[in-house]
């Protein structure tokens, strides 16, 4: 949630700065509690947004050597929060996320490159996104914003839900539920050295 970004507590900031200080050069760390992965889809023109409450990542990332980066993400689809209990129940069903059977969506980077000058803080993560056991290649452009003790990684990408058989069967009419889904990332990561 947005307020988490603004509501970074003093202990959290201290803990973050200590871990950076004591383990310079070590693996970077995602702060899930301060981060947000949300998505927006359209139902008959109506934007419907939700977010995932549980996710984690393994991050090896040096902005000076982006090509050596390795990022893998897991998202718990059972933690989908769409603000409406009925829709959440529906989303867990086999036609949608099938999340009781396949609760985890994942992303594994295959190549990372800087977009333009390194000082821009713009990078492109290409990799495999797996949802419902279906793997698709995606490219996620992100922007790094250096904060005092951590780094914000902000980006978004579009996916086509039917590529992953999300909303299969009765719901495959894209004039009712749009095929395009926008995924927004606002990640707080510690341990990334300023470029």
């Amino acid at each position, binding site marked *: 949630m947005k307020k988490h970004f603004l509501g970074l507590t003093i202990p959290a900031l201290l803990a973050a700065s200590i871990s950076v200080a004591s383990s310079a050069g070590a693996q970077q760390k995602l702060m899930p509690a301060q981060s947000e992965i949300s998505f927006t889809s359209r*139902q*008959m023109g*109506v*934007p*419907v947004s939700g977010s995932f409450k549980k996710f984690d990542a393994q991050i090896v990332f040096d902005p000076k050597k982006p090509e050596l980066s390795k990022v893998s993400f897991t998202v718990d689809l059972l933690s989908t929060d769409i603000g409406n209990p009925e829709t959440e129940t529906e989303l867990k069903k086999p036609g949608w996320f099938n999340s009781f059977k396949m609760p985890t969506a994942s992303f594994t980077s295959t190549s990372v490159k800087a977009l333009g000058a390194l000082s821009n803080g713009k990078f492109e993560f290409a990799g495999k996104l797996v949802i419902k056991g279906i793997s698709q290649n995606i490219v996620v452009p992100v922007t790094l914003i250096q904060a005092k003790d951590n780094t914000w990684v902000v980006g978004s990408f579009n996916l086509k839900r039917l590529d992953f058989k999300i909303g299969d069967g009765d719901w495959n009419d894209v004039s009712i539920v749009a095929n395009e889904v926008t995924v927004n990332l606002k990640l707080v990561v510690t341990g990334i050295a300023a470029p």
Partner: protein
Amino acid sequence: MKVAQINSTYTGIAKVFHWLLALMIVVSFSVGLYMVDQPFSPQRLKLYNWHKWAGVVILVLSALRLLWRFHRPAPALPATMPAWQKGASNMTHIFLYVLFFAVPLTGWAYSSAAGFSIVWFGVLPLPDLVLKNRELAEFLKPFHWITAYTLAALVVVHTAAALKHHFIERDDVLQRMLPAFSGPTTKLH
């Protein structure tokens, strides 16, 4: 104003508002009753959206209708009617008008709280009346159906009273809202 007040029938525009809204309200209410029991499906999603679009049309038309009513007040009730009946008639009409606004607005607010903005006819995004909030949505939900059922009850009372005027009192209270009827002093064109 003076001319309209002594007029014994409704203007053509008032009749169009009345019958169009009567039709829309009956259909929207029926669709509302039907859709809530449907299983989660594309068909139900369509019904919900049509219901919402119709609700906003009802809201807009009711606002225009009220403005028109201020401009051209309703004809006076028959002088033969007892005072309590006139009072009851006025109260019913006031409540009807309040509900013409309250029913769509509570539905709109509930939809906003539930996280479903209204995009009118799938094209025009309307502002959310309240922020998306799970608890607020649950709180607002009953208000929409309570106001809708109250409106339905008043429509029954209104219809019964109109029929009573026509078949028992045999006055022109019902007739003056009929499309073909033009009272003795229709000079409003």
